[in-house]
C-alpha cells in the first residue's frame, strides 16, 4: 500500500505527496502531458528535442544542473510517445532548491540560440548511436510505419527522420513550450522525507503564481481497425535473419490491457515461457525470442521478436511461432501457468516499489492516466484475469488480419 495525498493549485497544477520518513532523501518528479504523439507529422522528434532544451537554462536561472548538483542532487528525464518526465533526487533538507529550479523552468525557458544549436547536434548523435550505427537499429522505424497508418505512434520519439530535428527553429521551440509546458498540463509529485504541509507551502510559494496556461485537448486520429495482414521484407547488412511480428492491442485503461500483459508473459517472459521453451530449447529454430509491449496509453502493439538459428528458413520459423499462438487460441491454459505469471507480476511490482524514485514516477503516471489510486489496485486487476480471458484475448489479438510482419534478412 503506497500512501499519498493530493491537491490542486489554483492554476491547475496537480500535486501528489508521498511521505516516506525512512530515507533522508526527497524526490521531485514533474510530468508533462505531452509526448511524441502530440507532434506535428512534419516536425517529429520535437518533444524529445525539447526535453534536452529544458536543461539549457530557464528565465531566471542560467543553469539547471549546477545548483542541483551543488545541493547534492542528481536528475534525469525521458520522453516517450505519450509523456515527458523530469525527476530529481536530493537530500530532503535541500528540497526547496528543486522547487526553485522546476518552477522556474515551468515559468519560462531561456530560449538560447546556442543551446538549440548544440542540442540539435547532441540529439543527432543520439539518433546515430541508437538507431543508425547499430545492427537492426531501424526495426522500430519500419515496424511503426507498417503497423500505424494514421495514429502518431507511427513515428519514434527520436523522430521520423534526422532532418526534422536539424530544421527545428527557436520559434518552433517557443510555441511548443507555451502550448504544453504549463501548470494545467503538468503533474508534480514530491516523495520522501517531506510532509504534506511543507509541500503545500512550497508548491504555493514556487508554482502558485505561474499562469495556468490553456488545457491541451488531445484529438488524435484513432488507428482504424486493421483487417488485412501486412508484410515487409528488409535486406540489411546484419549477420543473422530475424523476424518481427506485431499485433494491435488495447489502450492502457482497458481491462484487456492486463490480460494482454499476462499473455505476453506467458509467451515470452523468462526461461520457462512458451516461446523460449518450445522454439529455442526444443525445436532450436531461434537463438533468442522475446514477446513484449511498451505499455502505451493509446492502443499499441504486442510484438514477438526473434533471431533465427542459421540454416532455418523464414517460413519454418514463422510457422513455428504461429503454431504456438494457435495453441493459445484453441486450448485454455492451465490455472498453474496463469498463476505463475501473476506471481511474477506481484513480485515485479514489489521490487519496483522499493525505490523511492519509482514510486514517485508511478504516482505521476497514474495521475496522468486519471486515477492516482490505481497504484494500489493494479495487482487486483491482474488477479481478476481468468484462463478463459487469456484464450479469448489470444483469439482476438492473434487474428491474422491484425498482424504486421517484418522479415529481416541478413545480406551484404
Amino acid at each position, binding site marked *: 500500500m503506497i500512501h499519498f495525498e493530493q491537491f490542486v493549485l489554483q492554476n491547475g497544477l496537480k500535486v501528489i505527496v508521498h511521505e516516506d520518513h525512512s530515507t533522508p532523501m526527497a524526490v521531485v518528479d514533474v510530468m508533462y502531458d505531452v509526448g511524441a504523439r502530440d507532434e506535428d507529422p512534419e516536425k517529429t522528434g520535437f518533444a524529445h528535442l525539447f526535453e534536452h532544451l529544458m536543461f539549457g537554462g530557464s528565465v531566471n536561472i542560467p543553469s539547471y544542473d549546477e545548483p542541483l548538483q551543488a545541493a547534492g542532487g*542528481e536528475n534525469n528525464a525521458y520522453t516517450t510517445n505519450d509523456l515527458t518526465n523530469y525527476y530529481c533526487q536530493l537530500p530532503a533538507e535541500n528540497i526547496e532548491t528543486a522547487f526553485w529550479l522546476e518552477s522556474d523552468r515551468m515559468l519560462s525557458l531561456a530560449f538560447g540560440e546556442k543551446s538549440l544549436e548544440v542540442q540539435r547536434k547532441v540529439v543527432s548523435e543520439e539518433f546515430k*548511436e541508437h538507431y543508425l550505427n547499430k545492427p537492426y537499429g531501424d526495426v522500430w522505424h519500419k515496424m511503426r510505419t507498417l503497423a500505424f497508418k494514421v495514429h502518431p505512434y507511427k513515428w519514434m520519439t527520436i523522430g521520423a527522420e534526422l532532418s526534422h530535428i536539424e530544421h527545428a527553429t527557436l520559434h518552433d521551440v517557443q510555441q511548443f513550450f507555451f502550448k504544453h509546458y504549463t501548470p494545467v498540463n503538468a503533474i508534480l509529485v514530491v516523495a520522501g522525507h517531506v510532509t504534506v504541509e511543507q509541500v503545500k507551502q512550497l508548491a504555493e510559494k514556487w508554482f502558485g503564481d505561474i499562469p495556468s496556461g490553456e488545457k491541451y485537448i488531445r484529438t488524435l486520429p484513432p488507428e482504424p481497425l486493421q483487417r488485412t495482414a501486412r508484410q515487409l521484407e528488409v535486406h540489411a547488412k546484419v549477420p543473422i535473419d530475424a523476424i518481427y511480428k506485431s499485433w494491435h492491442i488495447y489502450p492502457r485503461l482497458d481491462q484487456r490491457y492486463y490480460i494482454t500483459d499476462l499473455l505476453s508473459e506467458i509467451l515470452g517472459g523468462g526461461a520457462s515461457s512458451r516461446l523460449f521453451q518450445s522454439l*529455442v530449447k526444443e525445436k532450436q529454430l531461434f537463438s533468442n525470442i522475446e514477446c513484449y509491449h511498451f505499455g502505451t496509453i493509446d492502443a499499441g502493439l504486442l510484438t514477438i521478436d526473434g*533471431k533465427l538459428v542459421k540454416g532455418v528458413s523464414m517460413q519454418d520459423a514463422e510457422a513455428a511461432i504461429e503454431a504456438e499462438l494457435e495453441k493459445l487460441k484453441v486450448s485454455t491454459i492451465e490455472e498453474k501457468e496463469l498463476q505463475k505469471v501473476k506471481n511474477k507480476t506481484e513480485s515485479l511490482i514489489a521490487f519496483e516499489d*522499493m525505490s523511492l524514485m519509482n514510486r514517485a514516477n508511478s504516482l505521476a503516471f497514474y495521475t496522468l492516466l486519471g486515477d492516482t489510486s490505481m497504484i494500489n489496485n493494479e495487482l487486483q486487476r491482474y488477479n481478476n484475469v481468468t484462463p478463459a480471458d487469456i484464450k479469448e484475448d489470444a483469439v482476438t489479438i492473434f487474428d491474422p488480419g491484425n498482424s504486421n510482419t517484418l522479415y529481416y534478412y541478413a545480406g551484404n
Partner: protein
Amino acid sequence: MVNRKIAPVIKDAIDYTLELKPCQKFLLDNNIPVYTIDAGAEDVIQVELVFHAGSWYETGNLLAAMTNHLLKNGTTAHSAFAINEHFEYYGAYLNRNCYSETATINLHSLTRHLKELLPMIREIITTATFPQEELDIYRQNMKQRLEVNLKKCDFVANRLIDEYLYGFDHPYGRYSSAEAYDALHRDQLAGFFRDHYVNGQCLIFVAGRLPVDIAELLNKNFGDLPLNQSAIAEIEHAIVPAVNHKYRIANDSKAVQGAIRIASDFPNRHHPDFTGAQVLNTIFGGYFGSRLMSNIREDKGYTYGIHSYLQNHVQRSAWMISTEAGAEVCEATITEVYREMERLRNEPVSEEELLLVKNYLIGTLLGDLDGPFHIIGRWKSMILNELGDDYFDESVATIKSITPGDIQSLANKYLQPEKFYELVVV
C-alpha cells in the same frame, strides 16, 4: 512575489553525517560466512552466493562463464525447464553472473517464498549436470549473438581496450570468440563445477525483509555442504600491456559514429590515492556537469554522452574514458579529452567547483544507501576486496577534506596522456 533570481539556502551535503548501516555476520556449521542487512518496507529478499569461481581460476577461455551460466540448465533430478519453472512460479529471479575473481548465484524473491526456493539452489550447486544438449544450444546461440555484437563498434572497442591494458592471456584482458566457444567440452565444465562450486569457497550475502529463521534456513540448506574446506588457490597472472599506445580500427565501412576508448592502468582500491582519484574523476568525466560533458557534449555537440570512470577489478583498476562520437569528429573529440587533462594538470580547480562536486558525491552516496540491496552491495564490495570495516567512513572523510591542491597533484600524477591507450573503432 518570490524573487526567483535568489537561490534558496542549501545545506552543504558534506555537512551530513553519512552512516552505512552495519551488517550482521554469522557462520554456518561449515564456516560459510553469512552477511545480512535486515531492512526495507517491501516483503522482498535477496540471497547472493558468491563463489571464488571467476575467470581468474579457469583453465580454458570462457570456462568460468559457461559453467556459471549453465548451472541451472539441469540437475540429476530436474531439467532446465523444471528448474526455471520452479523459480518463476514463485515469482522469483535466479541470476548468475561471472566476474574476474568471483562468480555468483543471486536470488530475488518475495520473502514468504524463500523456503521453497533455497532447496533448489542447494540442488543446483551440488548436482548440476551440464547436459550436452544444453551446452550445444547455449554455444550455438552465444556464437550467433557474438556475431551480431561484433558489428557494433562499442562492443569491439570494449574488448580491445582491455586487451591493450592487460594482454589477452590475463583474465582482465581476455574475451570471447567462436573458437573459444567451440573448444570447451562438457567434462571441463563438470570439473570446474566440482572444484569451484561443489568443493569451492563460498560467501553468502542476504538483504531485505528477513524471515526470523533465516540462519536456520541457510544452515539447513547450505551448512552441511563440503564448502570452504581448503584455502583459495593462489594464482598469479602476468599483466602484459600492449607496446603500441594508439589504435585506429576499421570495423564497419558505413559507420556514422566511432567508439572512442582512452584508458590507462590504475592501482586497485587499496591504493591511498584511490578515493582522491575518484573525486578528480568526477570533475573530469564522472557526472553530468563534468568537464568532458560540458565541453564535448554541451558546448560542441560531438556526442550524446562522454564518461570517465575507474573500471575496478580486485587486483587492478583502469582509468577509462568512453564515448561514441560522430565519425567526422572523433579526432577532435580526442584532442579535447587531452585538453581537459591538461587543464586539470595546469590549473587548480576552483573552490566552488570542488564544493559542488563534493556535495554531488555525498548527496548521491546518501541516495545510494536507499534500501537494503544497495547497503549490502557496499558491504559486499568492502568484504570481497578486503578493504576493512572503516573503508566507507575513510572514503567519505577523504571526499569531504580533499583540496584543490590535492586534485591538481593527482591530475599531474595520473592524467598524463603518454600513460593512456587510445582507440577508435569506426
